């Protein structure tokens, strides 16, 4: 009995490992958000299966072993040593096989999530009670009110630090979060696949306005993003109606335009 159970467990573990390692995607751009959704589907099937088996067995027992006579007693099985070990080892190996399968697939996704692709755009994030600053590296900084502005289709890595309490930067759409730990720099990355606006928010309790520490990730086409990040030199931007261009533009033009603007 023992030998057979060990064999069974090993075979189960090996085959499940093979399944786990089998579906290596060869896509051009690693998108851990998609992989998260796939793995989540697998895990739901896995735990759903276990749940249905145990649930049906328990329900069947509860219904079919109701007491019918007052003097009735239970007739549960008495086990020999070998039987009781079998009832320990076989389930233990089945559970362990499933655990290792899940661990292997979880680890695979983990590598996708933690290994930042080369050429990812870097944004420095500073969190504090209760706001966020996004620093794009060339002097451009946005706050949570303006949002995190990123180009479509390019991986973005956030290098994050906190000025006070622990915060956590969470973008539900991309299935990713990581804490901002005072005294450390932490990171996360994601791939903004489609244009649009997606909520980011704080998920580590940080006091009064914890639930107001949110904003939008604004994914815009790459060309639009480049124009936003590196605006054309002010001389070239001839239109004087633009507020920002005016400030650094030629003084006479700004003076001329001022009454109309404000």
């Amino acid at each position, binding site marked *: 009995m023992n030998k057979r159970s060990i064999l069974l467990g090993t075979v189960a573990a090996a085959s499940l490992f093979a399944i786990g390692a089998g579906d290596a995607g060869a896509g051009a751009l690693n998108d851990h958000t998609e992989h*998260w959704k796939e*793995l*989540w589907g697998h*895990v739901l099937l896995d*735990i*759903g299966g*276990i*749940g249905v088996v*145990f*649930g049906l*067995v*328990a329900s069947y*027992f*509860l219904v079919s*072993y*109701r*007491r019918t006579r007052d003097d*009735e*007693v*239970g*007739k*549960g*099985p*008495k086990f020999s040593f070998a039987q*009781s*070990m079998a*009832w*320990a080892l076989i389930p*233990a190996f089945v*559970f*362990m096989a499933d655990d290792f399968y*899940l*661990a292997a697939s979880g*680890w695979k996704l*983990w590598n996708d*999530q*933690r290994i930042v692709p080369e050429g990812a755009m870097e944004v420095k994030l500073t969190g504090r009670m209760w706001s966020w600053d996004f620093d794009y590296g060339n002097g451009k900084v946005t706050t949570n009110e303006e949002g995190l502005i990123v180009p479509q289709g390019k991986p973005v890595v956030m290098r994050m630090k906190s000025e*006070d*309490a*622990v915060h*956590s930067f*969470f973008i539900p*759409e991309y*299935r*990713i*979060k990581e804490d901002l*730990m*005072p*005294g*450390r720099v932490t990171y996360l990355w994601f791939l903004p696949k489609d244009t649009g606006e997606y*909520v980011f*928010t704080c*998920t*580590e*309790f*940080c*006091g009064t306005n*914890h*639930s*107001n520490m949110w904003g939008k990730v604004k994914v815009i086409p790459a060309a639009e993003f480049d124009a936003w990040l590196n605006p054309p030199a002010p001389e070239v931007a001839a239109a004087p109606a633009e507020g920002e261009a005016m400030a650094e533009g030629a003084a006479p033009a700004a003076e001329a335009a001022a009454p109309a603007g404000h």
Partner: protein
Amino acid sequence: MKEWIFTTDHKRIGILYLVGSIAAFAVAGLMALGIRVELMAPGTQFIEPDIYNVMLYFHGAAMILAFLIPGLTGFLANYLIPLMIGAHDVAFPRINAFSVWLFWFAIVLALLSLAIPNPPDIMWTGYVPYSSQYSSGNSSFYVFTVHMLGFSSILGAVNFLCTVIFMRAPGLGWMQLNFFVWTILGAFVIQLIFIPVLAAAVTLLLFDKYFGTAFFVPDKGGDVLLYQNLFWFYSHPAVYVILLPAIGVFMDVISTMARNQVFNYKVAVFGGVWGVVLLGSDVWVHHLYTSGMADWIRIGMMVTTLLISIPVGLLIISLVGTLYRGSIQFSTAMWYTAASFWLILIGGLTGIPLAMTSLTLHLAETYFVMAHFHFIMGITATFAVFAGVYHWFPKMTGKMYNESLGKLAMTLNFIGVNLIFWPLFVIGVEGMPRRYQDYQMFPQFEVSQWWSTIGAVIVALSTILMIWNWISGAIWGPKAPANPWGSVSLEWTHTQSPPGPGNFKEIPKISPDWHPHEYSKA
């Protein structure tokens, strides 16, 4: 009154634990109701954020530290263990009395923390540096409450380990213990080893906040992550301090009500209970998956956390197996136990994705986590306390509660908790974060939040019915038969209901072929 306050009788001490922990449950439950009502719609309805945060803090801290742990390891262990092992009392009755005093003082202190100008708002986790540098709340009240409850539990642990090791009735072997006794032993071993770590963590927090030390201040060379490690080094095993005795209660109830031996008793004891104790100490990092820990330890603890499924799986196989070919009588306690299969399955299985670091990068700190631990720890263990009260009610009072009212309250409670937490599982996966007073960024979750609140109202009603059943049963209930469930366990066969001082007129002598879960010879 005096004979209750100064009592050294383990049964009265047990009742004192029950009254205190149910009081804590009631207050913390009202907090939960307030929280749910606030969350019926986005924006602020009735409760401002600062008050809301205090309520969250109090709900978590009181439910775990002042209801679940004292309810299971205070009330049930105190009342039942000397009776189950055939002892006159615990090993150190006066220390036992001191334990319950500490517990009551801690409850008073916790309640006082709500009356002071700046009540703590630091969540039951008390994460630094918010709790030590930025919160205006009085973290000291929380720290001293933890100290007192910790001392109370350590004294209880020493007391009960000594009691079971040295005071078993003559002839009562280790393999003849009620399953509940084994689970309590496991729980107290965990308490004895790990409580000092929690006490150290909160003490250092106190020093940082009030005495200017810098254990957790990064600017001065301290480390924020240290606190989280110390805190969860205790607080994850604490989950098993709650879960193990809960499973013990269910196992004893099933064995008695199905008149059936525990399925694979020895494997459930050594593989299940002690497997959980052993492995449960090596999984705490799964609370820190998003905290910027080194990648290798996050992966390592993912594997150990998943492996917890083995001992827990063995325990569940024994729970289900004990029904097999049994003769099940459905008392109210058995209804709670049957429902707990559902709770343990849902709560346990939703723990599996949370064990996986990579899935948890999305799920951490969302309603999914919150619904998961409410199922497996909160509600399962609460049902165990309730099942325990109902099952041993005739023993404690000598009277019967109303069976139909008990089943009605249980049904409402079960419907209510499912209505609360299923919508929260769903919106949790969609990204609804925990500990939010407002969710204006997620207006689409309003319907789920609304239904969840309806569930909370149903649970509140069912709790009132249940407590009324207990009180009216204890006062006006009909006299209970000596052994209403036909149990073969010592507390039913060899003592009166309720047992007098000293429990046994004569300490029973145990023959080697007797077993508290053996019915086929009767």
